[in-house]
């Protein structure tokens, strides 16, 4: 579904991704873990062309991702994204946020879009907040609207960049519950996360990114419970037993 082949990315002279290989298969959840600055967000953003890359290939369903080609718009409608800071449109209600893509990008009929948008908001537990503006919603609620907005595109895959790390602790659970449900329905997801317990539960595969390289890759069990790489062990010790 999403394949990385020797992906290199630099910002100016600084190489941030140094040859990434890997694949996220259809219906699977892949978690991307690694220290701050290791390049997790950058890798994720390359998949839907928010960043370009200089070498190698990223393929979405065998279609080459090129941030500068016209095809990128089409790829973005098939690979949705959920941001750390939600990035809801503040001048639109929750419902309008969710309707925006299907209505104004995909050009689907309004009545149908509206009905589905209400369904999506209901499934993330926000049936009673459809007419609220983002400023009137809690962080957890905003992130759930953002997930509904991504789902409304009926994407083949969703990219999530630390979807819970801007949330107050008591709101993390409500968002993770929604993501667990999605995983159960076999939505393809690539998730950057520091929630190791969550990754253990839902991830089919885990990538440990270290200084722009995949240092370790395997099943959740392999990488998170019996890590081979010393840096993975060290990282996991630090995130699971914070000082």
């Amino acid at each position, binding site marked *: 579904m999403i394949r990385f082949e020797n992906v290199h990315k630099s910002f100016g002279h600084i190489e941030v991704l140094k040859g990434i290989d890997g694949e996220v298969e259809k219906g699977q959840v892949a978690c991307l873990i690694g220290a701050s600055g290791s390049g997790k967000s950058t890798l994720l953003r390359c998949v*839907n*062309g*928010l960043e370009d890359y200089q070498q190698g290939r990223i393929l979405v369903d065998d279609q080459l991702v090129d941030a500068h080609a016209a095809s990128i*718009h*089409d790829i*973005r*409608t098939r690979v*949705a*994204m959920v*941001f750390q*800071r939600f*990035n*809801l*449109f*503040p*001048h639109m209600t929750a419902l309008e946020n969710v309707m*925006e*893509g299907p209505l*104004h*990008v*995909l050009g689907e009929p309004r009545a149908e879009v509206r009905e589905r948008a209400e369904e999506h908001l209901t499934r993330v537990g926000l049936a009673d907040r459809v007419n609220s*503006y983002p*400023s009137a919603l809690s962080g957890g609620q905003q992130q759930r609207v953002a997930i509904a*907005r991504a789902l409304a*595109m009926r994407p083949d895959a969703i990219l999530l960049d630390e979807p819970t790390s801007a949330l107050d602790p008591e709101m993390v659970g409500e968002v993770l519950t929604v993501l667990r449900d999605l995983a159960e329905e076999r939505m393809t997801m690539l998730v950057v996360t520091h929630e190791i317990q969550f990754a253990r539960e839902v991830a089919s595969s885990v990538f440990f990114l270290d200084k722009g390289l995949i240092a370790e890759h395997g099943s959740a069990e392999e990488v998170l419970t019996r890590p081979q790489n010393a840096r993975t062990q060290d990282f996991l010790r630090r995130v699971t037993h914070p000082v």
Partner: protein
Amino acid sequence: MAPLSERIVEYLPLLISGLWLTVAVTFLSLILATALGLLWATMRTSGNALIERPARYIVEFLRGIPILVVLFYIYFVMPELGVDLSAFQAGVIGLALTYSCYIGETFRGGIEAVDKGQVEAAKSIGMRHGKMMRRIVLPQAFRISLPPYGNNMVMLLKDSSQVSVISVAELTLQGKMLASSTFDNLTVFSMVAVLYLCLTIPLNFLMRRLELRMGASL
């Protein structure tokens, strides 16, 4: 001399006719300046050097010339180039050109102040640049730009008095003519000032109300 109340009643019709012209000049040049300003601002934030640069040069060029010179140029020089304009038309165009720069810079500031996450969210649902500007960026930029835009509006209203130099008989010129024929400078110019305030004070009030209402939904 007649009593004050009689003189006020006598002067008022002329000054009111000037006031209407002031409103007309301001209103028309505001519309034109806003449209042009929007054009400059979207050009300058297009991210394409070929589109950006002309807008930057036009704005820098116009901003470097005093309003009076722009007005003289349009009113006296254009006819020599075969473009005949009435004083009213020349005044509206001159004010609009000059103010399109200020308003354009105001809008540009607003566009650049919109959170980058908004652009990324719009892109991530597959939006193309034009639609993203129209539906996501400009509505938010407009709210951000509203207070400085309101200032521009009031300044434009006051600067509309400049078109008196090319003989548009708006409020200031009517006042000046009236004062020189009656020698009643104190009364006439006091009335002129009060009439301007009758426009600017409600305008300021209106802008503040609008800001509050828009701020509430953000």
